[in-house]
């Protein structure tokens, strides 16, 4: 193949599969939050109309500590504080992390997505 045409051919082949996962951009943390969390949790700091507690100011916050929200006894008495390790364990499988909690949830994110989301969430004030 002509050396000049070869890059063009490669580009054409790639563009025909341009939407395969390997070439897709990873979802941003905002998108991950939007899809996986935002229906039940705001990014505020006080209890609101969402069914789950707000996630603003989460870093080092004791689990089950937002006033006005009705937590499970399991979460309230867990002694957990939110950090990267605890949040990742929680996101991986809430039932395994703290049995009998109230969050009926199966995380649809990959481990890599969960890691980025957890880091991002803990930065939200």
């Amino acid at each position, binding site marked *: 193949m002509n050396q000049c045409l070869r890059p063009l051919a490669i580009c054409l082949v790639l563009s025909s*599969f341009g939407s395969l996962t390997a070439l897709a951009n990873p979802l941003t943390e905002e998108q991950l939050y939007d899809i996986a969390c935002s229906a039940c949790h705001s990014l505020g700091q006080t209890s609101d109309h969402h069914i789950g507690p707000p996630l603003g100011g989460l870093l080092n916050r004791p689990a089950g500590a937002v006033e006005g929200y009705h937590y499970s006894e399991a979460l309230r008495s867990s002694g957990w504080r939110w950090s990267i390790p605890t949040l990742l364990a929680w996101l991986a499988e809430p039932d395994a992390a703290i049995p009998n909690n109230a969050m*009926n949830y199966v995380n649809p994110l990959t481990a890599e997505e969960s890691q980025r989301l957890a880091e991002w969430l803990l930065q939200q004030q």
Partner: protein
Amino acid sequence: MTSTLTRRRLLEGSFAGLVAGVSSGCADHSSGRKVVVVGAGLSGLNAALILERWGFEVQVVEARERVGGRLWTLDHLPGSPEGGGNVMGSNYGRIFKMAHDLKVPLRSPPRTLPSDYFVGATRIPRDDWASAAANPLPNGWRNVPPNRLMGKLNASNPLLKTRAWHDPGLMATDQSALSGLRALGFPDAAIQLIGANNSYGNNLEETSLMSLYRVMGEFGRLSGPALAVKEVTQGNMRLPEAMSGQLLRPVEMGAPVNAIQQSSSETKVTLASGKTLDADAVIMTLPLPALRRIDMDLPAARAALLDEVDYHKVVQLHCTVEVPFWENAGWGGSWWTDSLLGRVFTRPIPGTTRYNMTVWINGDDCEDLNALDEATCIDTISRALWELMPDAREVTSVGQLVRWTNDPHAGGVWALWRPGQAATAHAALRAPVGRLFFAGEHTAESYRGMEGAMESGERAALEVMRVLM
């Protein structure tokens, strides 16, 4: 992407501070990607709204002339009773958030009147159940009303985790509800009463015991947060209508899909009208009986699964009662029967002196009724009603027959899992096939019903975005 930004502000509320940054970002790298969503029920609309928010060009196509799928408010009847999904569980966070954001008012449902019992033709007042001669239960069980017998399963519920209901390890021990209930010591009379009005299987032989555990466990969890069960004040269908009203492109109504073809770079959706829609991805949300009619060129094993999963059968006859005929006799106003009538649920129509009364028949008992023409079916159910409750006849008008199995766009009310099937069929049915993605309550994991539909739409949108961003 001004419109995306506008809707995002509207929808996100407290998330608004984030909006400016992410909206410009999403426009940069995802605009121009086309997604067709098949089905304008809750799952399809939720997926479409998420994808539009992030810059995708979304076209929802809907076979019916209305949105909502298996939400169907009977607006032509007094009190607008629900012909489809009627209960918004107290932990339906996605549903409540959507209703809040779209300003769709919710209310606590008017209380369904207390239920008395008929065993055969024998009337048993609810307070007399334990001592009634017609109560077929043995000692130790007699004080459990027939509509609470299934709840006793929770005493042995092994499903401690949300996703355990399709855990292959637990499913290895799954069995039919019939043999499972016997093994647990449920007396035959109790099993018969459970089978008479089982909302979660067409018959106990083909019902998975684990799936019943799942349902019972979910009911337990519904009472977790201190919130109440809700319904949309003006009818549940107002929620999907409000959702569709938010879409940039209107739902294409009356547009059943005939075929979906995929090539290496594009997916083509062919409507029954002959019109074709090209897309980068398709989200298929239809329930399996409706999905079977579409030529999708699925792998053989996957196509076979579509036929193997059963759907629950429900027949409803919606009536309006002018005068509470039950009061003089000291009855509660609702009935549980082990006859053709199944259950009769009655509740007041707010602001009036009238009542909605729904005859609710489940499972294989529906088969004969589904085979009748509409007039004969209504006549058959009405006669049975007048026979058990002669006083109802003069003050009750029949409004609407609903037969979900006969609806070609539904084929039933929800997916049922046969013994052992949840571990295999559930995961397989939601796996993408090329650029064809699947949503709908049958693909949901944490929830069932309306919230399950919403959850599945989120997951399908995520899968599409992973491929197309």
